[in-house]
């Protein structure tokens, strides 16, 4: 009788299964973060596969996205306030760092690697050029705590966000109540970053029958399909694998890539294959930003491959293209620039609406 009454009362008052939550403050909670607000639908461009991100554990909402965007552009996430995520991830550079081989960090330091672009993250299983981060939700913790990047502690970030009274209503709107904790900060940030979708370049329009390639672009596309799609397959233009493309390690950086994560010498000098979408605006290139021009990258595959035990088998003979062909592949790669993404005001700093963006296509 007691149990029955208890159940009825629980249901009536909307509170179910509280009886075992004595220790809830110490429990690890995986999936439950009471999201509330206006549901958002993840954009999946035509021809894209299903995303790998588990949206059911972090349902997208307008309010979560707005909160995540504010955090992304907020200097409070860094030690001295000068290095928001957006300081190294600029929209007009497809969220890489425009014009910098290595990015600037706290106290006049440089980052260890070239900042990667941020878009189509919902399709990525692993993050960072060495794949060391296994879930986009915990990705921001790496730059936040890196001494040469944002140089902050997670505790202090949460403290500063709690101090800033403009945040409480945004947390309430996104998560039902004012609680501010690292889980909510990270889930909101993930809502913003997985929403950065780029799939509306000229290439996409051609695929949808809304545009057509110029002669050189078409020729470049055919060469690309012959020579480049082993590692950069359509439509993501990456196979998300880790490969050694024959770049000798920079003697000062001594960066051996994925080996640092796996402790496996077979992974020496391997880095994640980047997407080539928006490649024309994300110069400089390679994990250490050693090349300024797309043509230099393509020539590297012809003339510059350094042989080593872990060199990718696909590159043993290099990629033999003439200068004419390189120019055409270059023309094709420029059709992967997605201006509507680079200039989408929704992705911009809400407090500074101006977006500097190269005028392309």
């Amino acid at each position, binding site marked *: 009788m*007691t149990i029955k*009454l*208890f159940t009825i*009362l*629980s249901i*009536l*008052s909307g*509170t179910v299964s*509280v*009886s*075992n939550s*004595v*220790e*809830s*403050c*110490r*429990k*690890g*909670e*995986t*999936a439950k*973060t009471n999201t509330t607000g206006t549901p958002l639908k993840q954009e999946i461009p035509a021809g894209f596969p299903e995303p790998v991100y*588990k949206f059911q*554990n*972090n349902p997208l909402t307008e309010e979560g996205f707005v909160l995540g965007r504010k955090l992304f552009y907020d200097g409070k996430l860094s030690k001295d306030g000068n290095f928001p995520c957006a300081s190294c991830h600029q929209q007009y550079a497809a969220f890489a760092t425009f014009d910098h081989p290595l990015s600037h960090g706290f106290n006049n330091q440089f980052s260890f690697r070239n900042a990667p672009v941020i878009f189509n993250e919902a399709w990525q299983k692993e993050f*960072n050029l060495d794949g*060391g*981060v*296994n*879930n*986009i*939700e*915990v990705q921001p*913790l*790496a730059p*936040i*705590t*890196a001494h040469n990047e944002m140089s902050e502690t*997670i*505790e202090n970030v*949460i403290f500063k966000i709690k101090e800033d009274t403009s945040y409480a209503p945004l947390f309430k709107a996104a998560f039902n109540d004012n609680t501010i*904790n*690292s*889980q*909510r*900060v*990270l*889930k909101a940030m*993930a809502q913003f970053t997985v929403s950065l979708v780029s799939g509306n370049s000229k290439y996409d329009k051609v695929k949808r029958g809304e545009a057509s390639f110029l002669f050189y672009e078409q020729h470049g596309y055919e060469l690309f399909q012959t020579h480049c799609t082993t590692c950069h397959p359509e439509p993501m233009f990456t196979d998300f694998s880790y490969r050694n493309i024959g770049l000798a390690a920079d003697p000062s950086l001594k960066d051996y890539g994925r080996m*640092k*994560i796996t*402790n496996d010498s077979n992974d020496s000098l391997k880095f994640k294959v980047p997407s080539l979408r928006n490649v024309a605006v994300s110069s400089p290139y390679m994990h250490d930003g050693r090349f300024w021009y797309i043509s230099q990258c393509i020539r590297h595959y012809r003339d510059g491959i350094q042989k080593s035990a872990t060199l990718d088998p696909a590159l043993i003979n290099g990629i033999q293209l003439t200068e004419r062909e390189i120019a055409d592949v270059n023309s094709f790669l420029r059709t992967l620039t997605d201006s509507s993404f680079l200039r989408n005001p929704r992705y911009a700093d809400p407090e500074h609406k101006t977006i500097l963006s190269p005028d392309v296509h």
Partner: protein
Amino acid sequence: MLTSLLAIFLSFFLQKNLQQQTHLEIRFSNVVDNKPVSPDSSYTNSFGENYTIQRLKYYITNIELVNTKNHKRTTIADSYFLVDNSNEDSRVISLPVNDGSYDAISFLLGVDSLHNVSGAQSGALDPMNGMFWTWNTGYVSIKIEGRSTASNLPQNLIEYHLGGFKGPDKVNQRINLSFPRSNIELSNNKTIVVYVKADLNLFFNSVHSLPIKTNPACTSPGRLARQYSENYATIFSIDKIENK
């Protein structure tokens, strides 16, 4: 009016419900040769090396009650706890359990692989607790920090941050501890207290001999971390069991 009345009823029944639950309490005491671990004490390991322990934290997760005779294992859902030697409350784990007859407890020292790939989490698994690697995602299973004259590191530091949940680098250890007497009946809304002792000297020398002089620090996944994990799997024992 109706809502507040309901709330009063509800809290009454909730309280009743809580009181009526049988509980298992696990009390951890961290020692070196029966001397409690405290930042002000110093210890000597089996290699004759002096050391101190300034900070000691470890994850106790996936707790199970075991009946080895009928091979029944009862998993306690959502059991994730961070034991921090400096915080007395954290050394006591209290769990509502199902009535039954058990002769052992079992837990994971460290965090299971699923929770290492599940993104942002809260409570004991909040990355703010300082037991999370940001550059190579994963929870640290155990952190031991202190000093030793045997260490050649700056300030004679010793630092063991042991983690890794993949393949050969896996350091999560399932620890099974049999009750000293035979079966214990957990029933009638009673609380049984299991006193678990962790002897840190075994961390340096049990399955593997790992003197401080050779390895004053281990802070990344790999073979050495794995060896330490095989040692720390042996540090726990049950001191006694009491009815509360």
